[in-house]
């Protein structure tokens, strides 16, 4: 039996008195496209930072593709592609050099040109990333995350800084990766953009996962019509106190 792509149990992170993430229990099955939603500061980035071993948990456990994300980093990251949030690229290095770093470290055999073609950046392959716009940096990071055909693709706020073409491109990439069989886990605070791509969404609010399920199931729970958006669901659920709701998918 294949282990879940992501599984957390009581995963918590505190900075002094501040609770950034409060006992998160979440399971993402292999092969699904999971939208991890919530407003800024809800704990989405904290969760991804924990899963990627950027930070260490205060308590709780997690498994990523069956690996311990903090003690088995090499085996884990070999199968994970990450497009981080709030990053800068290496200004003196070309797009090609960026991809070569990832390809060679992962010992993959991807062609940098082909990857850049997928994200519409092939014309800038030899240009230093210091000359890139924010949108181009985002596309480069997306290309880097695709190296080595990862089993799990983690995209942290992938729509940030992208024009409508870029947004459509991210959707296409997510669809293609999902068809290939990869699990896609992405976070977004721009709720409107996730309806089309997600199999399932989880809404994080003030460090708590307040609801999780498919969009139709969530609409039912909230007594909303079939054209209601994630935004509507979110407004209803966060109006008043955050309550834990489990929705059957």
């Amino acid at each position: 039996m294949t282990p879940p792509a992501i599984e957390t149990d009581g995963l918590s992170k505190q900075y002094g008195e501040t609770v950034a993430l409060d006992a998160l229990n979440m399971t993402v099955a292999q092969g699904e496209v999971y939208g991890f939603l919530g407003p800024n500061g809800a704990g989405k980035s904290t969760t991804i930072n924990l899963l990627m071993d950027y930070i260490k948990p205060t308590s709780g456990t997690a498994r990523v593709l069956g690996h311990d994300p903090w003690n088995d980093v090499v085996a884990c990251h070999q199968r994970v592609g990450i497009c981080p949030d709030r990053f800068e690229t290496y200004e003196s290095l070309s797009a090609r050099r960026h991809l070569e770093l990832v390809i060679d470290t992962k010992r993959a055999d991807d062609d940098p040109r082909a990857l850049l073609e997928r994200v519409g950046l092939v014309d800038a392959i030899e240009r230093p990333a210091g000359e890139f716009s924010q949108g181009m940096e985002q596309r480069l990071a997306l290309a880097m995350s695709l190296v080595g055909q990862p089993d799990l693709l983690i995209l942290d706020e992938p729509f940030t800084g992208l024009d409508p073409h870029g947004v459509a491109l991210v959707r296409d990439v997510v669809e293609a990766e999902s068809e290939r069989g990869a699990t896609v886990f992405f976070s977004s605070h721009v709720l409107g953009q996730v309806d089309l791509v997600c199999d399932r969404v989880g809404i994080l609010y003030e460090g708590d996962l307040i609801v999780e399920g498919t969009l139709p199931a969530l609409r039912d729970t909230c007594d909303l019509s079939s054209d209601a958006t994630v935004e509507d669901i979110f407004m209803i659920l966060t109006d008043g106190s955050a309550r834990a709701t489990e929705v059957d998918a």
Partner: protein
Amino acid sequence: MALPRWFPLARKEAVALLKSKGTWILAPLLVVWGYGPTYISWDLLGPDVTVGFVQVAGSILLPLCVLLLTYRSIIQERTSGSLKFLLGLPLTRTDILIGKVVGRSVGAVLPFALSAVVLGVIGGVKFGLFSPLRFIGVFLVTVLYIAVLVSIATAASAVTTSTVRVTAVLFGGFFLLLTLGWKIVGVRLYSAVTGNAVNPLSPPADGLLFAILRFSPGRAYRTVTNWILGLANSGGQYTSVATVLYPGHSVNEYVVDAAFSGQPVPAYLHESIALVVLLLWGVIPLALARYRFNRGDLA
């Protein structure tokens, strides 16, 4: 055999350094800084003064520039967020430290190697053929010294949370006190501990004084290179050491052979121990930094 996992990172670090103009400005600066024959050192060393040029090139200016080329290597990536790419790769955090140290060392060694070749050619033409073994020996110890400095700066860069702090520690503490000013600071420390006043022109035959002086990586480096030069047991610049040894001359430099003239010298003052000191500077700060870097939050 497969390349180590950190090899692509090391290559990226070296390439980034070698692509910046600042790195290559180092080469001509080191030539100008290193070239400086004196009558006394020529009299004592003959054509091997050229080997001494490499030692001078390796002192003061080189450590300063190597620190400048390295001190932001990790904190900058942490602040900018590009560290998220490295941490997301199949690398342990220790791999990241090793890749940084190896890559930046290579990036800093190449301009130094260029300047050493130029100094060798100039010196060889002007002062005749020097001992190639001594030249290579001093060259290799300088390469080791560069790696040690990169390791120290990387360690500081890995544990700090602010660029200001790492700048203060490395340039105010490590460079100013321990590298540039250690002859003064170390002797004051000795006097404070023992209560003995030190006349710099005629230092006491006390092993502790020389051991304290040798604690500085810069002086340890010069002790080893003076040893290779066959000059004397001292952490001073070869021109000063030569002056101390020269009859009828004196200068405020600490030379074991002169201070202990005839008396037995403690075994721990042997030059090979200075090599060990240098190696420990390369290993211990990085090991301590690794301990913290492996456990901390990096985003």
